[in-house]
């Protein structure tokens, strides 16, 4: 597979490490009343869609950036590639 890196252009997927669902960016607040349940589903439950899937790829043998790759799990077509840091900031994550 080829991941079209937003900064570096097309790179072989073999340079990357795949973590899984991009929802892992949305780490719950440890002080929520239902933090335990929130962390449980955050850590353990997945949509695992047959179709478009947003997932986290780490360019380990490259620029060490975490990417959010939107990829079709039926065809492997890569629809979109974003820098995870930008996605996280857009989600309001900061410190």
């Amino acid at each position: 597979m080829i991941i079209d890196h937003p900064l570096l252009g097309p790179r072989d997927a073999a340079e990357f490490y795949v973590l899984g669902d991009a929802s892992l960016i949305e780490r719950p607040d440890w002080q929520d009343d239902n933090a335990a349940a929130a962390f449980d589903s955050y850590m353990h439950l997945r949509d695992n869609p047959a179709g478009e899937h947003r997932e986290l790829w780490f360019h380990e043998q490259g620029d060490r950036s975490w990417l959010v790759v939107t990829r079709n799990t039926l065809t492997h077509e890569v629809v979109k590639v974003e820098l995870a840091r930008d996605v996280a900031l857009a989600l309001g994550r900061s410190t």
Partner: protein
Amino acid sequence: MPDLTLTAQPPLGGFSHDFGGAKLAEIADHALVSIATPNGGEKKLAAAIKKSYGCALPRPGQSTLAKDGDTRLLGLQRDQMFAFFAHDGDQALAAVANKLGDAGYYTDQSDSWVMLRLSGELSWTALERICPLDLHPDVFAVGDVARTMMEHIGAVILRDGKTDFVLMSARSSARSFLHAVETSIRNIL
């Protein structure tokens, strides 16, 4: 008490060999210092670099050559670059820090890498065997730099001349990396 002054040793003891059409030689006289951009400090760092090196911040995948014609800034990450310059001794980090002050965060990487220069017309055919990147002269231009993997070894490749490549990999795997590049050359001769 014997004299305990420590003498430096390059990872490959200064390896050099001309295979005919491709020359491979260890680079032992260069330093490498990483420069990280503090969050929100890009402008300040860019200014400092313009001032002291007379060149721009490199974009990831590219490098910029300082006006001294020696120091090359390699754009390896969005918020991190490597300064690659001729240097002898242990003061590489200071050499950069003195120029740029508190505009960036610096880490000496000179000893982290083994550096090889591969030059000659056959460089491309040899690299075909280990480098996954498209190195076609029109695609990977002089000054382009990339981090990738060759024969299971993390590597940095820089094209700094018409038929010149600088190959770097972790110092600890220097021997294996040399073996991989050498084999690639021998296999195509």
